């Protein structure tokens, strides 16, 4: 019997404690049939990378509202790559200016979702990426 269950880590790096969005997404992904590992607020990039490794996730979803995304996101990507998880899909949600989003994508973030993104859009993005698209 084969499962090929998609595993997603949802983390909130940095110092802002507004985790409502992260929890809503975690719940939506669960309802879409994913296994969601929720790590809570105030995570350092090192904590996120360690959890991503131990949990062998396919996707890391970061939620950042503090404005610190330009330092936190590239650091997470760098740590994931350094530990052999180059294939992990990295997604970012939050209030991210367009020019930052472009730079983050160049730094290895696969997608940036702003306010108003529907959860079905995120679910579809993950499914397509996991199918090799």
């Amino acid at each position: 019997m084969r499962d090929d269950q998609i595993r997603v880590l949802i983390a909130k790096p940095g110092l802002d404690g507004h985790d409502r969005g992260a929890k809503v997404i975690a719940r939506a992904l669960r309802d879409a049939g994913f296994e969601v590992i929720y790590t809570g607020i105030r995570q350092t990039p090192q904590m996120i990378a360690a959890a991503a490794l131990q949990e062998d996730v396919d996707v890391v979803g970061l939620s950042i509202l503090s404005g610190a995304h330009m330092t936190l996101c590239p650091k997470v990507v760098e740590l994931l790559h350094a530990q052999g998880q180059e294939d992990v899909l990295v997604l970012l949600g939050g209030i991210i200016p367009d020019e930052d989003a472009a730079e983050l994508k160049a730094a290895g973030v696969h997608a940036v979702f702003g306010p108003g993104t529907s959860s079905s859009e995120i679910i579809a993005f993950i499914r397509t990426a996991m199918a090799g698209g």
Partner: protein
Amino acid sequence: MPKPAPTQQLIDGLLKGDRLALARAISRVEDDAAEAARIVRGVFAQTGRAHLIGVTGAPGTGKSTLVSALAERYRAQGLTVGVLAVDPTSPFSGGALLGDRVRMTGHSGDAGVFIRSMATRRGTGGLARASADAMLLLDAGGFDRVIVETVGAGQAEIEIASVADTVVVVEAPGLGDEVQAIKAGLLEIADIFAVNKADRKGAGRTVAALEMMLETGGAAAQVRSIFHHGQRMAMEAAASETDAEERWPIPVLETVAVSGGGVDQLRDALERHWAWLEGSGARSAREGRRLGHMLQTLVQAEVLARMERTLPPGLRSDLVEGMMRRQIDPYSAAAEMVKKLSG
């Protein structure tokens, strides 16, 4: 997507202490029964070293926080810890929200702690089907202590007793009265009780209720052995597991996991139980029971899978329809299916 690593590479890696290989091997074991067989075959000779600890109890008793605090105490002793935290899979979506890590932060810079969340998927009894395999992998990966936290358990999720050397049942004040404490099931599998949140009102009553339950049980056991054998005989019989287990005095400990209160005592009790298992011969008896259980589970799964493969298509739905029309009863329908299977 890059090509997945060959199975042998994962086996070699995890045996050498490569944590990414371990993490990936656990996923393979969860996802694919054939891979599980290959991987367990590759590591089994290197298992049997770790102390396997089960932590169970009702939702909200503080199991995750307690496991995290316990891991910290083991680390202070220089022991490495693998943690398997099991949470339920949604029966509707097949998805799961695994949230135990929220209470297990603080180990991230430490290579001596490995925490893995696991959804129950189709497993029953508070564990996932792959839990026992994942425990073997953590054992083979070199961890001194492997702690498995079950899903928030009710009264009958006692599967953990079949996979662990030592079972800690976590209680909290205010969850039930003395009648709850004398019910069968979960409470009977405890080697150690931890009354967590012991700084809250009613902790003393919970401790007293558990101690009373243990005393009544213990007294009955004593009377029985005296009645049957007399003292000398009872001592000779100590080699058998039931008698040996009767000699382990089940402690009822008070803990306050959030502040670390009583966690040293819990660790000490676990170490004492581990030494007792070894010294009394109960460890090998329990291991025999555990491996026998594993064998039976695997055979059942294989027989069921074979049944699915070989039964004529439509037989099951025909029988169910017959049952719904009251033309055939459930026992006869089952006998019909088994007959097709062996015929």
